[in-house]
């Protein structure tokens, strides 16, 4: 029983991390419909930048502040100077461009920080363990979960309760109309893309002390994040939450119950969902 509870918590922590990365992807891929294969590279960059900040200052909160801002700038620049120019070419061009970008970022990271995992250690309360309903559990994993809940609530508030959120949703729905109403849609999209990159970077900062920081970390999470988007339904925030939880738990209990097939389970789930309901669990059926 205790073991099941611990694995349930592991699943929740991984789901939290997955949500941080895929919430950015929901904005970029689900809403703007840009197939961004470099999204996980932003996550990796976040972890490496965080490593640098922690080396220099030693404060995690500082790196949670600085790294997303840096990633926002990088994301906005990528959108402005690269993606925007190939948008008319459709998905294939965006995909290839971001593939190339992922190659470049991955190799740059190997070049600068070396092709081996770095370990990030944090001190203080976060590195301790506490007693939770009879089991000892590391605080940091609970912190991961808490941060993702905060980000989720903040995103929901921004998207559904503010004027900016209305503009974003309207621009996604009918770009030309919103543009005609006098809103600078390209600027909005640049901001949304940057925000997506920043969320991914924040995921990287938080993942650093939790998983290992290595050049392969991007590949490890990229496909899972895409699976989350597809299973949850394109552009649905609620779907992203549900699918992150589902896949986090599936991953965690898959390792416990069928260690050999844990990898296959996730793809099986995605295949089943897409065959049964191609628009995803919470997606809107497209005509």
């Amino acid at each position, binding site marked *: 029983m205790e073991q099941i509870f611990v694995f349930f918590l592991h699943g929740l922590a991984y789901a939290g991390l997955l949500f941080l990365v895929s919430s950015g992807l929901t904005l970029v891929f689900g809403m703007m419909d840009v197939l961004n294969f470099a999204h996980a590279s932003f996550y990796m960059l976040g972890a490496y930048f965080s490593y640098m900040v922690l080396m220099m200052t030693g404060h995690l909160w500082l790196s949670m502040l600085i790294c997303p801002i840096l990633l926002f700038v990088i994301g906005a620049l990528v959108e402005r100077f690269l993606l925007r120019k190939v948008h008319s070419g459709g998905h294939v061009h965006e995909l290839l461009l971001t*593939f190339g970008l992922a190659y470049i970022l991955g190799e740059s990271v190997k070049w600068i920080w070396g092709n081996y995992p770095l370990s990030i250690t944090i001190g203080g309360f976060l590195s301790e363990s506490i007693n939770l309903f009879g089991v000892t559990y590391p605080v940091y994993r609970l912190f991961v979960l808490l941060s993702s809940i905060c980000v989720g609530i903040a995103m929901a508030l921004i998207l559904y309760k503010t004027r900016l959120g209305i503009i974003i949703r309207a621009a996604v729905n009918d770009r030309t109309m919103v543009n005609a109403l006098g809103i600078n849609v390209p600027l909005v999209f640049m901001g949304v893309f940057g925000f997506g990159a920043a969320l991914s970077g924040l995921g990287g900062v938080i993942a650093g002390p939790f998983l290992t920081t290595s050049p392969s970390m991007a590949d490890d999470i990229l496909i899972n994040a895409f699976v989350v988007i597809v299973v949850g339904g394109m552009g649905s925030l609620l779907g992203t939450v549900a699918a992150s939880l589902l896949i986090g738990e599936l991953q965690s209990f898959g390792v416990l119950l069928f260690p050999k097939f844990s990898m296959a389970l996730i793809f099986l789930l995605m295949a089943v969902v897409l065959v049964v309901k191609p628009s995803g669990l919470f997606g809107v059926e497209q005509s």
Partner: protein
Amino acid sequence: MTKRTAITVAWVACFLLFAALPFLIGRYQINLLTEIIIFALFGVTYNLLLGYGGMLSFGHAMFFGIGAYTAGILLTSVTGTPFWAVVVCAFGLTALAGFLVGSLLLKVKGTPFALLTLAFNSLFFAIAFKWYAVTGGDDGLSVKRPNIDLGFWTLNTSDVSTFYYITLVVLCAAILACWYFTRTAMGQTVLLMRENENRMQFIGYNTAVSRLILFTFTACFAGLAGAFYTLHFRFVSVDAISVNMTTMVLLLTFIGGTGHFAGPLLGSAFYIYLQDYLSEYTDRWPFFMGLIFIVMVMYAPGGVSGIIASSANWLRERFRSSNRGIEGT
């Protein structure tokens, strides 16, 4: 001489040039050429999906991988499997796999199709990775190329040039079959499907069936390329079925250009020579590859074949206008 005969002559000349090359170049270069031919076929099948059918697949490597593993498993676990049996089995099994996966994918298109193919590819990858007893998992399988016994003459396939000729003949025949496919009525409906699927349905075609036929067709030829991949490297590992393999075929097809049948042929040569050249100078060759892709997507989305076509057009226009200039004076 009409344009059509000119093109046929050019192709035959190209084939003869490839046939003559082993007399002119060294072993290393012949191996590289063999690899180029294998990936050219793989790219051509991918282009039938992407360029002709307008279907973006992230999972084409699953068929390449199934073909490669069929060859690998047959050669390691069944002793004395003849060469032709390896090729035929790989072809048949991938046709079956293509049919089964394709029938599950019939309804979806666009982005869900792309991601569903990715899911299936990852599923097959997970199987190949975990089913250690059969596939060798991470370690892969090492195989020996079987010799070909023609009854009166035995072809020694361990000889580099001999294997090159076998690859050249078999895979060029396969590429020719793909080209022929684009010329048939079925191949034309694929183009129609890309351009206007609604209209095609109104006319009375069953687009789902057309899509399934195209998918199965490209799958079995990709499997054939996969079988030759195993035979060429005498080794098969999870690399053959990984997402990276799909990435590679997507990139080389795009570099060659999706607008022309010959695009992937050029793309394969370009990609493999470039990779070979860059990896000689730097370990960081993916960095430069990435840079080249970005530049190509932004400034030459038609690929190498697009560049050739537009410069040919430019020359023709220039020639015409200079003629007009002479007439005017």
